[in-house]
């Protein structure tokens, strides 16, 4: 049935509209997380340029505004996009807490919101609505893969002592819920010893690092991202945390920006993952994406770039399949059954949208930091990769 539907969508009518598709994107372009927005903007330009060379795709007119990862500012930008610019799509947003407010507005204003970076499962779970779709892996899929990794690599008699630390907002809460849920599903014997939530964009983690060292878990699951993660790793390394427990971050830790920012301060042997890797999968598509990004910026892309690329390709593909933007039902149907070949997809796999949750299902690759000078300024890259395909349907609450 699903295959038939996809075939029907592929045999879409010719694009009925000639006006460009208007997309309003919200990314932090300055402050903490500013790099994600800047990388996303580059990837949007790359996608628009690429689409222009392809036949049958609509022209995208993309406006990127600096949200500064602030909720009220983001809400006001979203309102302006919808009420003044009449955009067809809202897109972007790095922080899940901001995304929840923007998504709520998208629901009220009946505007499609294509999430490209934030990862809290709440957006496709409790806060799901017909106007929201997310094209990047969410933290739930990351935690599911992480639990499988732990189950495969830590088989022993005594229960594992697992601690958690993550930012104090929905993304952190969901990550802790999900890793426990999937450890239970995998039948891993473990004991949760502690959970800590430093505030988002904190700079001093010594209080929590000392507490974790006193708790002495076997595994520390970390859900920080961006500069928070950089600061945490640097301070934890100085305080000797990594000698006492295995550090794991399954959603954002292996992001190239983290590896580059830490440079020689990145310890060897941390277990990390990301939604996109510059050195995996070893496909022509991924290599071209990374090479093109490097040619434009002189640096390698963070995973936000892959998310923004996916967002643009998803919008163009859905509009093409729906024959335009006027028929929102057709557009929604196209988005629900979206199937895309993206840079983060290994050979033989294509990212696909879960029609119920509106969450893109993608492969998750988890690895260990190993010395690798190929992608300077990073000195460590992920190696010894374990690959976890997504489930058939997104695991709802």
């Amino acid at each position, binding site marked *: 049935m699903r295959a038939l539907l996809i075939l029907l969508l592929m045999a879409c009518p010719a694009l009925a509209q000639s006006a460009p598709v208007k997309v309003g994107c919200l990314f932090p372009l300055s402050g903490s997380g500013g790099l994600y927005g800047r990388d996303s903007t580059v990837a949007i330009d790359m996608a628009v340029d690429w689409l222009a060379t392809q036949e049958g795709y609509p022209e995208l007119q993309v406006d990127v505004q600096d949200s500064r990862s*602030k*909720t*009220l500012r983001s*809400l*006001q930008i979203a*309102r302006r996009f919808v009420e003044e610019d009449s955009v067809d799509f809202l897109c972007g947003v790095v922080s899940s*807490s901001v995304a*929840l*407010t923007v998504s*709520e507005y998208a629901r009220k204003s009946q505007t499609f919101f294509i999430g490209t970076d934030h990862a809290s499962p*709440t957006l496709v779970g*409790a*806060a799901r609505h017909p106007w929201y779709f997310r094209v990047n892996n969410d933290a739930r899929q990351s935690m599911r893969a992480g639990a499988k990794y732990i189950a495969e690599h830590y088989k022993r008699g005594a229960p594992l002592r697992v601690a958690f630390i993550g930012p*104090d907002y*929905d993304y952190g*809460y969901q990550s*802790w*819920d999900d890793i*426990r849920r999937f450890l239970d599903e995998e039948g891993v014997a473990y004991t949760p010893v*502690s*959970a*800590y*939530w*430093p*505030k*988002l*964009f904190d700079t001093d983690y*010594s*209080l*929590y690092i*000392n*507490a974790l*060292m*006193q708790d002495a878990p076997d595994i520390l699951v970390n859900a920080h991202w961006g500069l928070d993660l950089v600061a945490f790793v640097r301070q934890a390394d100085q305080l000797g945390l990594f000698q006492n427990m295995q550090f794991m971050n399954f959603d954002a830790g292996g992001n190239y920006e983290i590896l580059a920012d830490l440079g020689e301060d990145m310890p060897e042997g941390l277990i990390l993952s990301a939604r996109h890797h510059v050195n995996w999968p070893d496909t022509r598509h991924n290599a071209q994406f990374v090479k093109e990004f490097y040619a434009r910026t002189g640096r390698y892309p963070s995973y936000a770039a892959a998310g923004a690329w996916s967002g643009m390709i998803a919008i163009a593909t859905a509009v093409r399949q729906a024959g335009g933007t006027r028929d929102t039902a057709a557009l929604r149907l196209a988005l629900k059954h979206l199937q895309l070949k993206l840079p983060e997809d290994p050979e033989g796999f294509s990212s696909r949208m879960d029609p119920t949750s509106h969450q893109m299902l993608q492969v998750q690759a988890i690895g260990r930091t190993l010395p690798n000078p190929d992608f300077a300024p990073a000195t460590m890259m992920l190696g010894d990769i374990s690959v976890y395909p997504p489930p058939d349907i997104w695991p709802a609450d």
Partner: protein
Amino acid sequence: MVFAKSWSRGSLARRYMVAALIAALVPLLIISVLYDRYAADLLHRVSASRVEGETEAVAARMSSFLSGQMNRLENIADLPATAAFLRAGAEQPIDDAYFDFLLLEAESPEVYGIELLADDEHLLAAAPSGAGKRESIPVMAPFVRHGGADIIGPILPENGRPGWFLIRMPVTVDNQPLGFVMMRLRLASLTEQMAPLSLPGIRSPQLVVFDRLGVAATGTLAAAGEVLQSSAPILPGWRVQLVAETGRLDAPRQNLRLTLLLLAALLAAAMGALFVQMSRRLSGYLRPLRDGADAVSRGDFATPVPDNGPGELGSLAQAFNHMRRQLREMINSRVDMERRGALGDMAAGIAHEVRNPLATVSTTIYGMKKSEPDPDRIVMYDAITDEIERVDRTIEAFLKYARPAAPVKSRVAVREVFRSLRTLTAARLMERNVTMNLAGESRLEFEIDPTHLRQILLNLVLNAVEAMPDGGVISLTVLRQNGEVVLTVADTGAGMDAPTLQKVLRPFFTTRAGGSGLGLAVTAELVRNNAGTMNIDSRPGKGTVVTLTFPAHKSEAPE
């Protein structure tokens, strides 16, 4: 001074013992001092006098934080828009501008959300939108009324969510209650302010509410413990306390003490083992020296001591061996001199008491022989005369050995000596079918007593002839080597075995019937008197090589 003397005279082993003890005690002393300083520092850090001020300062900051949040909430409650919204109730959607204002107020990381409640406490609106979906207030939650606000909580982390607390403020217009504004605050934002008071493993700060609920700086439940310090209340029933991490405080100290004790014991054991080892090694080197000294005292100068010891011990052993050799040579020389003196006296006696009567006997026999007509008797007289002459020759040789004439050195051409030697021995050589070869630097000249040289070479050639009863070859060579004149007399005769070779220079030792046993002894003496050395190398069946070495230039004869 007395100690220094005593120390220098003390045994080496004792000195090692003292050195080992010092080496063990000094680190122990250092470790003890360091430990003492650590303990003193620990005491200082946990002392109440120092932390009292810090605790009160932190409590004041937390109180200020709470006042700030209450002030913010009061501002919201005082807004006409708040009263208007609450008055309208659920019938009217929240105004965008007012919602944005609430959102802005809630954007602080300390604030989870702001909620507007009706007079009957049911939720009308929340900013952000999802904030109102958080956990409900537990029935048994602590409750404090302070400054016109209700403080509810703290609620500890539960079900994988962080802790929080509420500040609730009533909204009234003209004394008529319209509802409430409520701010849900992050508990850790309050407790994190206690972090500067934390000393991991030693003490931890806690926010204690109504003396029954302790919250750690991380916003999690804190374990009860011995209270070191308590602040003034920051709210009624809320205070900051410093709690000793008793187990964690004692365990590292005990571990440290045990580690230090173990370290000290290991150090002492290691030093003891080192001392024993050093003592054994030293004894291993010194014992042969002691045995060597014992051997010398017993008159054994032939046994050397091993001289492969390290450093000064090896040098000492080498010096000991050198001393042993020198002593042996000195004693041998002294004995030889005394023996010669005795022999000289005896020789003088023999010359006087034997030779003179023999001369009388010989003269008498000669006279009797002249007048004897009986041929048989004449043969007997001749035999007596021959025997008397043989005895005289032996006495003559003995006199030469015992009282050798002092050399009178002159420049001697070896060629001339060899020529006269060949003339003197020609008949004997022919008789024994012996060939004599002369080789080397025939024009060589050197300082020596010519009579002695002739006697030396004659004795050696005659000995060689005697060693070759069936004929053979005698090779005489002369060479100049390293500033010395080297003469060799080699024969192809019977040779000698090692025991014979050892005794061959002794006076009166002979292997031939009729030999006096003084030939080689006299030869060796003559060589020595002319500052030369003589070496005899012989193998049974292969022959004998006698090597004489003389200084090429004039030198003093040994005394």
